[in-house]
């Protein structure tokens, strides 16, 4: 269960506000926003790298943000075993930082895609997904141009073997290897996912498949 969280704001982040409000509604009231130029992280249990277009996604999505000053502190947070989540652009930043293996390439259809996507829950035994236990599937929207997950076969086999694949697309929308939508690192404390759980927490604004994600962080068991 997390008591406090930090959301990192890069220039060009645009889901930071959504992440903060989802966390404070469903996970914890103690949420800090941290500017990418800062070098110190407040002591928190969870760090979120939010969605958006950090640095305009110029060069490669997530590449420039991954070299931001705050990322050194984020890396040590992860090395200490702190929870770290990258959503969409955040996932891209995590692969660019090598906190997660692989890379996110341009969607196979070469177009930006914004749509609701059914997901298979492959591992509900993580701090991020335990409230999904007992569910085979959920649905969370995607909105990205570069979500086509690539890694070499060995890496993919290792991910598969280690239970590191957490979410898979039911209908692969972007060409991702082995339908991967979200993975963790080997230690299981770092998660990257392309779908946006923070946009799926309120029946008024659409689907609610992301609710269990934030409940999981709050320590709720299914």
């Amino acid at each position, binding site marked *: 269960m997390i008591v406090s969280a930090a959301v990192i704001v890069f220039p060009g982040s645009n889901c930071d506000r959504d992440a903060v409000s989802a966390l404070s509604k469903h996970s914890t009231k103690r949420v800090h926003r941290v500017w990418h130029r800062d070098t110190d992280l407040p002591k928190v249990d969870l760090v979120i790298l939010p969605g958006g277009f950090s640095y305009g996604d110029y060069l490669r999505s997530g590449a420039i943000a991954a070299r931001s000053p705050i990322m050194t502190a984020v890396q040590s947070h992860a090395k200490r075993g702190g929870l770290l989540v990258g959503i969409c652009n955040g996932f891209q930043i995590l692969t660019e930082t090598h906190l997660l293996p692989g890379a996110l390439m341009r969607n196979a259809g070469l177009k930006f895609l*914004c749509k609701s996507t059914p997901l298979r829950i492959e591992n509900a035994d993580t701090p991020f997904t335990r409230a999904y236990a007992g569910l085979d599937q959920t649905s969370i929207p995607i*909105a990205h141009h570069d979500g086509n997950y690539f890694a070499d076969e060995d890496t993919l086999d290792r991910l598969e073997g280690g239970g590191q694949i957490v979410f898979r697309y039911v209908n692969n929308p972007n060409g991702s290897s082995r339908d991967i939508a979200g993975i963790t690192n080997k230690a299981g404390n770092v998660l990257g996912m392309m779908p946006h759980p923070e946009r799926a927490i309120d029946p008024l604004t659409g689907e609610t498949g992301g609710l269990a994600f934030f409940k999981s962080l709050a320590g709720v068991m299914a």
Partner: protein
Amino acid sequence: MSAQNNPTSFEQAQALGLNEDEWGVILKRLGRAPNQTELGIFSVMWSEHCSYKSSRRHLRKLPTTGKCVICGPGENAGVIDIGDGLACIFKMESHNHPSYIEPYQGAATGVGGIMRDVFTMGARPVALLNALRFGSPDHPKTRALVSGVVAGIGGYGNCVGVPTVGGETNFHAGYDGNILVNAMCVGIAKQDSIFYSAAKGAGNPVLYVGAKTGRDGIHGATMASAEFDDETEAKRPTVQVGDPFTEKRLIEACLELMQTSCIVAIQDMGAAGLTSSSIEMADKGGVGIDLDLDKVPQRETHMTPVEMMLSESQERMLIVLRPGKESEAQAIFEHWELDVALIGKTTDTGHMVLHHKGEKVCDIPIAPLGDDAPNYDRPWVEPPTLPAINADEIASGDPAKALITLMQSPDMASKRWIWEQYDRHVMADTIKASGGASDAAVVRVHDTNKALAMSSDCTPRYVLADPYEGGKQAVAECWRNLIASGARPMAVTDCLNFGNPERPDIMGQFVRAIDGMAEACRALGFPVVSGNVSLYNETAGTAIPPTPVIGGVGLIDNANTAMGFGGAEAGDALVLLGATTGWLGASLYLREVEGREEGAPPPVNLEQEHRTGMLVHALIHGGQVRAVHDLSDGGLACAATEMAMASRCGVHLVASDTLLDAAWFFGEDQGRYLLAVKADVVDPLLDQAHEAGVDAKVVGTMKDSDVVLGDAMPLALDLLSQKHENWLPAYMEDA
């Protein structure tokens, strides 16, 4: 003294689009011939795009006041009161010519420009809409234009992180050489921190912020005021490239600055860049302005004063500060890693004075630029009246076949291929967006339980057939779409796209369309608070169909009561509100099924429109209906089919005992709504309608999984959906 200070000649002025009278006024006011820089400034300020010289006197006819209006036309965007100390700020603008030349960048910078108009007034942009008109699908350029424009709109809006929630897309050969790309932005501000552009007070510092100035789009404003010819494509002015990443930082930095007390006035640099922003601010504030051009951040070397003054580089703003606030303001922009420079100050001279490399390169009185701006009463002729089509003359073929034809026709087919490229949900407040089975997009006001509804509408084939009725209809349809979503319609913005106003027939379209709009806005209590005019949309003497696009905003007090057309259930009765005469003139049916583009368009009875709308509003909020859809293109059958597809339930419509099938199922009489209600509320509902003086009758039932039109062959809903969904992707992927 350098050559750029030499006096210019009339020939040079003419080359920049000024006529003899305009040249005469300049000579008189200056008492001398202008130099190059000054001439450049006059030419852009007096271009159609900046001066509204052909349209100004007619725009005055539009009603612009109302209970909800905080600020009408004249500022960067319109402002309305949405209660609880909040304001909604919105505007629509065209980027037609640039999008035809470079579809991706043209459309992208159109989105960027309209967002700046909104946040410059203190609002955070919360929603974008886009109204697109392309040429015939068979035209060799159309596919690439669609693909580029859509990618550009998405590329910009998605990156900035403002959801694109709605729009419209038409295809017609009339736009083959002149596509229309109109973008609308809606923002939300606190009423006590709205910012205006009047730079009152002399001696205040002028701050330049945002991107550096390059030679982008020089004479873009004059280009938007001239007809295309075959050479235009070859001329290729330096196209502006959008940088949404800079825009995003500019929004955050400006909104941050707006929480301090630094700002006297603020204005984005739009068309005619530094010239129009500085002159408008000074003019409105009744002051003069001195600028030192050497201080302007420049992206290129050796830029001349006229180049700097006319550059249309994107993502730039001009701010007049309170004295002493310079470093506080600069620090905010430096934090966001934006260029920032103090480039001058306001003065009490009433003149615009520019310095460059130690020389005074411009000294002109500001007031005449506005006061003496040309204002033409262009000759116009009354558009011809077309005969009404007698529906009985039109052979009614198989309505089932006609329905398939219509549902997969380019204008009617699903635009999913487009809107799936738009981030519709960022900011996490989108309740209904494109594809969300609602006639209007609905976006919650952040951290409240209210929502804004918004819609953009125009039916160009009606406006072409009868500009006056078509102008009325565009307003009425927009109003209707807001009503159908459960909103109280508040106010509108517009984007008036027409051909060459120097032609009396085109000017006639313009004048009469405005007359119709004005009448409808008045009758419906739907004032115009902002807008934009785009003229000269013609190529080689052929004008586009007149296209006055209306962008409306409404308010939903309780977001949970937002209505859509996807909630109908098996067993529900379908009630049609509003009178049906079977009007087929200028209808989609006539064009797509009969291959005829003829006849007078359906008239709009505004008094009846209002009455019906108020009834629908009351029924929605009385909790009596499960789904509401207005009737537009394709009439009853198409509206019912859309409701059926969205509700995933079949629909059976009865035939009429007085009208022929084509007229009954596909006629486009105005002011009508289709309601799905539980069977047991039908009778009281019909009574209520009767009391309100609104025609109402049960026209069908929701059931099984077929669409059935009277006695015609049942059509599987899945088949119709498939045809409806497939047209655009099949067209686009057939590259």
